[in-house]
């Protein structure tokens, strides 16, 4: 019987979760070049020391974002009294298909 590995370990070992070992860092860096990153305090890192520990103010899931976007599009259509444009219908169908899978 071959050795088994958990799916979560696979995700961890390839650096897709927070990498926690040297090997995981290596895997992560292979596929995630960091040159285009723009850390918020790049110009003045000392701000972090002045600011201290911060709290989260709001957590919005990506699905909430996309739902708000859809609601706004539908509102715009309703305001104008138009028929639903095809791209909105396609997007709604695609979303239903994805959620039903």
């Amino acid at each position, binding site marked *: 019987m071959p050795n088994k590995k958990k799916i979560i370990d696979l995700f961890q070992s390839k650096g897709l979760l927070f990498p926690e070992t040297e090997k995981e860092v*290596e895997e992560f860096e292979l596929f995630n070049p*960091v040159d285009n990153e723009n850390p918020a305090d790049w110009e003045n890192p000392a701000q*972090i020391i002045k600011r201290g520990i911060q*709290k989260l103010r709001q957590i919005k899931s990506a699905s909430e974002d996309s739902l708000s976007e859809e609601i706004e599009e539908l509102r715009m259509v309703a305001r104008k009294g138009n028929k639903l444009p095809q791209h909105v219908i396609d997007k709604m169908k695609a979303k239903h298909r*994805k959620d039903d899978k």
Partner: protein
Amino acid sequence: MTIEEIEDILLVISEKSNDEDSAVAAFTTLYHGYSKFLNSVVSRALKNSGIYDEQILNTVVNNTFYKLYENPLIFAFPEEAVDDKGFKAWVSKVAKNEFKRLLAEYYRDTVSLEKVGSEPTIESDEFAEDLSANVNFKVLDEALNMLSERDKHILLTLYLYYEEGKKTPSNVLNMLCKMYDTTPVNIRKIKERSEKKIVEYFSKHTQLTPLKHAK
């Protein structure tokens, strides 16, 4: 940065009560050396979890570096270290713990938690070990992106708190139930269904076929 450079910087920061200017200068050098890496790690984890936004990203990075400034000597390189990857791994782990702490704090303050009955351990499905050599970052990323945002978020949040043999913390389960207006049983079903889809994706997109998809 070399191991010696990092060790020097951490020592200078630890002397902040005697020489604050030098400590701030050393901190700035360290931030310029590792904030891009950390930004990338945290933003990738948030995007994978479906809860990416700049406020969360900046808070996790801010707090991680602040903790490093407050306690610079908690980290030490192992004797066999040859480069700075161990330091990167450690910073990433501090960020992961900070992210979990922030989530717990946020949901404690904003969501009224209900008692969840004793939940069984949420396990992760298994594969033949040789398969992992054939699955790379790209395939994993594609497999994840095939899931809906909700399912991806639920799966990766459970992974974030996964500890072998331990139950998923009830406040995490509660948080997910509240966010998606569902029950712990459904959360478990979503996780199982997502892992099944991932297994199927691997079998289609890698040369090896998983031997068994079992709990």
